[in-house]
């Protein structure tokens, strides 16, 4: 019956998650409660001889980083397909095997092209 399934083997992951969250949030809350707070101008100013910040902290990215990010997504998807292909290798037959070779070839052509055009520089 769908909807009645409990992934019980993930219990350790769940416990780790809960403990981790509790620890992180707890530490922040505890620190907030316990630490003394007496701010004055000297303390809030920039440390020692540091400069007064100029301009925006975030600078504009070059669009090329986006191209690289996109390539990352493409290869991520490829890896995601590669994994079940490898696990089910015994059951997929010749067509399944060659389909992955074709898939890799296409991605490779695209990658070589992007490389040649200087997207990775």
């Amino acid at each position, binding site marked *: 019956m769908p909807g009645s399934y409990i992934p019980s083997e993930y219990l350790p992951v769940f416990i780790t998650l809960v403990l981790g969250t509790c620890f992180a949030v707890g530490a922040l809350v505890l620190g907030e409660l316990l630490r003394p707070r007496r701010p004055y101008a000297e303390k809030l100013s920039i440390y020692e001889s540091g400069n007064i910040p100029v301009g925006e902290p975030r600078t504009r990215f070059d669009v090329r980083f986006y191209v690289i990010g996109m390539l990352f997504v493409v290869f991520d998807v490829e890896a995601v397909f590669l994994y079940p292909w490898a696990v089910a290798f015994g059951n997929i037959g*010749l*067509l399944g095997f060659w389909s992955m070779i074709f898939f890799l070839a*296409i991605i490779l*052509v695209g990658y070589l*092209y992007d490389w*040649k055009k200087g997207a990775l520089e």
Partner: protein
Amino acid sequence: MSELRLLTPEIVLTVCMLGIFLSGLAIRSKGMLGLMTIAAAGVTAYLVPSASGTAFEGMFVADAYSSFFKLLFMLTLFLAVLLAIGSRTIREEYATEYYCLLMLASIGMMFMASANDLIILYVGLELMSLSVYVLTGFQRESRWSNEAAMKYLLLGTFATAILLFGIAMVYVLTGSTSIAAVALYVMTGGNTDPVLGIALLAIIIAFGFKIAAVPFHMWAPDAYQGAPTPVTAFMSVGPKAAAFAAFGRVLVEGFGAAWAEWAPAVTILVVLTVAGGNLLALRQDNVKRMFAYSSVAHAGYMLLGVLAGTIAGMQAVMTYLAIYAFMNMGVFTVMLMLENGEERSAYAGLAKRQPLLAGAMLIFLFSLTGIPPAGGFVGKLQVFLAAVDAGQTVLVVVAVIFSVVSAFYYLRLVGTMFMRESEDSVSCSASKTLLFAVILTAFFVLLLGIFPSLVLVG
């Protein structure tokens, strides 16, 4: 593996695409690469199978229906490449990418025509749409091109999301995405389920977007106007034909037995599209925008054939699309040849300056209006007859009335060409390639008008 034989055209075009793509790294000539693409299109068209059958557990089907559309796509590809060779809007530097994206879009369209499973249909649609979005924004330095691509991408993605929702609903109902399973489900009396209505509505809305039917046409004028003209010519024919191919397959073959459920929605779409497209086209000053609305109106006429819900109706749509491909691409070629071809003033006195071009344009405009010796008449007649046979007489009358309205804006352009004198000399492209494309399309529009039996499907 023997079933792969049915996929020969798709495989060949994919291999050619990769070959041209790689040789594009060495060859930098737009003409040379264009010729290679044309050769690829020719070989692919030659290999379109005449045998029918299914492959991949019934997901992929090759039949006369899909073969017809594949030939049509190859024709569109051929003309789009000719336009690119002849015009300066596509820069030499990015020629490889242009041709490859055209071929990728064509591969997607071929899969759409052959899809017998909604998954194949969806992935094919994505492949086509993504390529066309990029082609729309191909003129990077043009703000209009960028805006057009952005708008097309956003609204197009929205449409595909709705389609996906519809497919999910179909899966909920039938437990399968196969069109054959849908047909079986509908035939065994599943059409009372409200979920079916939702699925149908989502599918109709999504395809309404893709064929630019009113009220889902908002992207079309901007995208058509902003895109480089060779791309506009391509996207006004190819993707529209592919959407009709898939639409017909899903509605008539899959949901054929539930005709009564989807007919009202399509009826509304037909009335709005035929009325809206023609009335809005009347008000346009920009010629390219006018033809964008005109192609919206033509989608309305074709939708009438789908609404008939019969095989005869779909055959009429196919005939119409074949003629529409020639006349619409012809119009955009003429526009491309004239400097400032988007402005009405460019056409003033064209009959005196360029009698050949004006003559060809006259044929295209007559054809678009549906005046007898030209091909458009045959297409309209077929669609209207099929609709009357299916008992849609009232709708046909509406369509005829608005088709008379369309004569106003088409013939106004004819008037500009023949009656008005040009104030200043507008220069015209001397490209032989473009002239060849114009003559070719004009010839076929006339030929199909005089000997309609050449293209009458059935």
